[in-house]
């Protein structure tokens, strides 16, 4: 069963001078097992949007249902929330316990699991995110490097075995290798746990490479929704929205502007090379 978002609107401080509509009239469905990317610049409403997916925020208009649970309803929300794991941008917002293992176990314990099972799940989660339990279980989370903290935070959510994994800027602030590794980890988690991944990212290259469908948010509204092919064929529009299109898409666009016919689905280096090869051979 999917996550169904219907006519979702969220207004902060309604009926006051500071009234502010953060998201407006968003309708979309996130299917089971898909890798769903969300892009949009700061203030486009994307973080408000994802907080509705696990009931951290409630719609002021419209509805969000997770596997049939209405997230506006207090009782159903608890059940829905248990299905949706949410990893925030900065691991510093959630790491608190004295050891990594205890910290990762926080979620499972809150779910009411007994100590032994919580520990088992946590160790398994640590292994899945690439934190060797032997080395890290007894370490303080505050001693970890930036990339390791991010993994520990991810493990804390994975240990709760969510069906949907929502990630807010999981690669922000990491070095290039760190970014590649986290993205690889996310992809392997998806295969292993068979879960749906919903990822917010500024990095168009990363979204282009991994996401199966992309939602583009702008000014609190859903600006576009489609496969990467569909979205990045509109590179010119993305740039005008102040978004960062993948550089290869920008290159293709620049060539188009110079009068060459470049197909619209070219936004990765691999595709660009095979296109240019084909074209040179034809000539």
């Amino acid at each position, binding site marked *: 069963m999917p996550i169904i978002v219907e006519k979702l609107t969220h207004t902060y401080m309604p009926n006051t001078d500071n009234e502010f509509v953060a998201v407006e009239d968003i309708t979309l469905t996130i299917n089971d097992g898909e890798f769903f990317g969300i892009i949009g*610049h*700061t*203030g486009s409403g994307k973080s408000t949007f994802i907080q509705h997916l696990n009931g951290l925020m409630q719609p002021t208009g419209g509805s969000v249902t997770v596997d049939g649970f209405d997230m506006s309803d207090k009782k159903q929300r608890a059940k829905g929330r248990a299905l949706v794991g949410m990893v925030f941008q900065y691991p510093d917002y959630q790491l608190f316990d004295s050891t990594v293992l205890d910290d990762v176990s926080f979620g499972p314990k809150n779910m009411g699991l007994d100590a032994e099972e919580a520990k088992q799940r946590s160790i398994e989660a640590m292994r899945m995110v690439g934190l060797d339990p032997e080395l890290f279980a007894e370490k303080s989370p505050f001693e970890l*490097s*930036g*990339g390791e903290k991010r993994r520990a935070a991810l493990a804390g959510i994975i240990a709760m075995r969510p069906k949907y994994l929502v990630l807010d800027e999981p690669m*922000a*602030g*990491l*070095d*290039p*290798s*760190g970014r*590649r590794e986290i993205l690889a980890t996310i992809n392997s988690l998806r295969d292993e746990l068979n879960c749906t991944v919903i990822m917010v990212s*500024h990095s168009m*290259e990363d979204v282009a490479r991994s996401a199966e469908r992309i939602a583009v948010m702008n000014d609190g509204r859903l600006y576009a929704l489609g496969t990467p092919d569909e979205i990045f064929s509109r590179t010119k529009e993305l740039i005008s929205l*102040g*978004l*960062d299109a*993948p*550089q*290869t898409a*920008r*290159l293709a666009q*620049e*060539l188009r502007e*110079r009068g*060459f016919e470049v197909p619209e689905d070219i936004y990765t*280096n*691999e595709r*660009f*090379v095979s296109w*240019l*090869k084909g*074209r*040179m051979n034809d*000539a």
Partner: protein
Amino acid sequence: MITIENIEYSYDGALKKALDGVSLEIGDGEFVAIVGHNGSGKSTLAKMLNALLLPDEGSVSVFGMATSDEEKTLDIRKKVGIVFQNPDNQIVTTVVEEDVGFGPENLGVPTTEIIERVHNALDAVGMLDYAKHAPHMLSGGQKQRIAIAGVLAIDPDVLVFDEATAMLDPLGRKAVIEIASRLNKEKGKTVVMITQYMEEVIAADRVIVMNGGKVAMTGTPEEIFKRGNELRALRLDVPVMVELRDMLQAEGLIPENDALSVSEMAEVICRSLLKN
């Protein structure tokens, strides 16, 4: 001119040296990029440049003044300003213009001159309209521009950006890089850009790659990016366009070239297509 001679530094309680024998010269008006993965020592190096940290071994000299000379500390900081990573943690007061005036206030600059400096600094980063705003209501990119203005108001010769783009979104990042290049080209400021984003290195005159507290490579961006495999081994990367260039060259589709940016690549490919 900054001369760094064989410096070593360890943080209290750390097993490994954060800096392990770094020697470097940064010339006047140069745009130097320092790259390296997390923990490579690049931020520690930045803090050596204006006596925020002092080396355990070796020496750092800024315009002939040794950073170890306590009497010169203030003069050194007047010459070398640093923009830090987290925009929130470098803004001191509750009004934008007063924050920009913080540096000159510390130096005892007369009030009328502070007002003029603040005006010019805010103008230079395009934030004049926000002079009376509260910093916490601004976006990350805007806050970082305020932080740059705060450094500019001190009128340093050298501007160090210590991963100043790491916490920003693409728009904010672009604005910071543009301001840095402009200050370098138009105002003749020496810029030291410390970053992990390889795209931000393209505009530099010289790139220094750090690894394990040591300088691992140095050269022009073109020279550095030719060594993609070495970069990847150091947990870094090449810009997307350089990767594409290498792939196209390997297929023999374009001739050897030094294109680094999208528009340079477009130019090269155009020529190849037209020749064909």
